[in-house]
């Protein structure tokens, strides 16, 4: 930090007046004040310019526009939004659509990524090479390429409704999107979900009780058997029962189009396919890295103390691999959230395209709209990071 004051090196005979210039405390304070004033000055410069430019262009400011009618038709709405709703509702539609595409893509990409990552570690040469080729091919091509490719190259090239591709006779894929069946309104799915949640709570309590008892008495309880029963078999039964007793609104061809069911628009299907296949390649690498990060000695030690292979996997490999995988997985999930905005390129009505695109065009209130949109992403990102940090801390404690 002395370069700026190099000419003022203390010389014998120099007065004490300037000696404070050489004190570390003063210099630290000086440089920080210097940078802070510079940054604030730059910000002030921008704000003054913006307010003058907006005044001259006659752009209103303030957040009143949020309560005014949006007047924008949205083709894919899960809320009760109509073109007469206000801009608040429009913002909400954008957030819901963003979260929906993020949620389904994250789940599908995680499953696909685990399959590919484990395939890449397979001893089968062909399988591991194919998985490797997939990862190298996908990671080195832009995501936008996949979005456009799926939208214009694949979905648009699908046959029309009359030649739809049926999926088990209940869902239909054609160039107008994917039409899926919906349960009619009074459905027992709520009860099924409640039953599963109850099973989850029971399992948690049971596991905690078993752990305490083992610590106290050394007796083992069949936690995994009970867990499989409660969380593996019970949900299947509950969901099957619910599915069978529901009256389904199955889409059916009437004339030139499908009636009934729920239409997932082509934009949704294309964005989902692109996000899933793209992110899966990155998750596959994380999974591979996580498993490889478990030292070989751990496996040998597990075998030496007499653990069965399934126990080795459950008690030794997975906990340690997960600990390595969680931080990069978090950033991948956040990437999916941010990358869902690639939907703007094909007009999937997610947050950026409906709010920063349509609403901004309508109202012209750039600064307010940009601030709101970015805050939403930052807030969701902070929540996810906090959650993952909490989970990470737990994992780290459990395994150490």
């Amino acid at each position: 930090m002395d370069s700026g004051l190099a000419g003022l090196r203390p010389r014998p005979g120099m007065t004490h007046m300037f000696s404070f210039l050489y004190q570390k405390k003063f210099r630290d304070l000086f440089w920080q004040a210097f940078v802070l004033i510079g940054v604030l000055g730059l910000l002030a410069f921008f704000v003054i310019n913006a307010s003058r430019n907006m005044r001259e262009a006659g752009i209103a400011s303030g957040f009143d526009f949020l309560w005014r009618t949006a007047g924008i038709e949205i083709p894919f709405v899960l809320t009760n939004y109509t073109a007469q709703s206000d801009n608040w509702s429009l913002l909400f539609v954008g957030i819901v659509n963003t979260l929906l595409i993020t949620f389904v893509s994250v789940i599908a990409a995680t499953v696909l990524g685990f399959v590919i990552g484990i395939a890449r570690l397979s001893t089968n040469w062909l399988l591991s090479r194919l998985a490797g080729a997939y990862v190298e091919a996908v990671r080195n091509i832009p995501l936008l390429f996949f979005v456009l490719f799926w939208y214009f190259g694949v979905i648009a090239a699908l046959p029309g409704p009359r030649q739809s591709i049926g999926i088990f006779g209940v869902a239909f894929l054609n160039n107008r999107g994917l039409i899926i069946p919906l349960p009619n309104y009074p459905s027992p799915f709520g009860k099924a979900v409640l039953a599963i949640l109850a099973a989850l709570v029971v399992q948690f309590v049971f596991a905690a009780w078993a752990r305490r008892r083992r610590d106290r008495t050394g007796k083992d309880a069949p936690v995994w058997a009970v867990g499989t029963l409660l969380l593996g078999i019970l949900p299947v039964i509950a969901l099957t029962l619910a599915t069978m007793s529901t009256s389904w609104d199955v889409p059916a061809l009437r004339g030139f189009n499908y009636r009934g069911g729920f239409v997932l628009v082509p934009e949704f299907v294309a964005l989902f396919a692109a996000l899933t296949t793209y992110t899966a390649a990155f998750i596959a690498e994380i999974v591979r890295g996580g498993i490889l990060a478990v030292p070989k000695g751990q496996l040998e030690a597990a075998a030496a103390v007499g653990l069965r292979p399934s126990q080795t996997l459950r008690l030794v490999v997975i906990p340690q691999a997960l600990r390595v995988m969680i931080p990069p997985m978090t950033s991948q999930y956040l990437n999916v959230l941010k990358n869902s905005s690639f939907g703007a390129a094909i007009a999937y009505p997610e947050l950026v395209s409906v709010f920063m695109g349509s609403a901004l065009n309508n109202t012209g209130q750039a600064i307010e709209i940009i601030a709101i949109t970015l805050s939403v992403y930052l807030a969701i990102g902070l929540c996810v990071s906090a959650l993952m940090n909490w989970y990470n801390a737990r994992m780290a404690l459990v395994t150490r």
Partner: protein
Amino acid sequence: MSTLRLIRQKLFATPLDAVITLVLAFLLWRALVPLVDWMLLDATFRGASRADCVGDGACWVFVKARFGQFMYGLYPVTERWRVDLAGAILVVSGALLAWKALPYRRALAIAALIVLPPLGIWLLAGGFGLRPVETREWGGLTLTIFISLYAALIAIPLGILLALGRQSRLPIIRMLSIIFIEFWRGVPIVAVIFLASILLPLIMPAGIGIDRLARAVIGLGLVIAAYMAEAVRGGLQALPEGQHEAATALGLGYWRATGLIVLPQAIRIALPAMTNEFIALIKNTTLVLIVSILDLLGIAQAALADPNWVGMNKEAYAFAGLLYWLGCFGLSRVGLAMERSQAKNEKR
């Protein structure tokens, strides 16, 4: 004999393995044969128009006819030599500087960094004796490379400064760096490109217009700077504390200790990570499409709307995708090679 045993071991070790191998081989066969047929055997290479493509295969005539656009966008044909010259200067100077025995390598590198960027802009944009070409007419691969390089020119120095700021012991500087980095890393790049194209003209004094392309480059540069900063921070953290302490003990001040001792080592460690960020930058340049700037992917997308070449989706995507893949894959190999040579150096 040993080959046979190897095949058995690698492909047919267990009955399950055998089933997997056979199923995959069958699927691969079913996928590869039509692909090769389409790309090569049934494809049309000769001709000049849509009418020449009669086979079932790919119509590479389309790519041939539009090759100029894929490379230069709508850049005037008579001025394309300027793009070529800029590219040649870039390649030659890059190759010269990569040559380790070059005399005065350090001074020349600094000179190139000062002289070449304005020279490139002058060659492409014109003025001062050259015919002006508006950025509206730039496009294709030229534009992809232009945006990547100039955004990196913003991102790398800014990223290094931010990384140093984040590691600083001065709380205000550290806070400001963290806010900047986490803000840009937390928002989608699509939103940043929108933001730059809308907000930049708004926050400038009246009368100062910022070119549409420049806005996109600045927006991308700011985001990538935040990611670069994290890559550089990795290098700074990997460096033993003793390096800085030793430099201080020798009497070097902060800037000289950082510039002469800490940064050169930290950046060498961070280079593979920085290469990855550069690859991410190249992939993200495609997003300028949403503000109607036609880079390589944009020009391929625009070519689909040409009434003379209806239904060329597969060809356009295959060509653009292959170019992106070659560029990014090549760079990722460079990054890997750097990582390996580092590991070797450490062992010695």
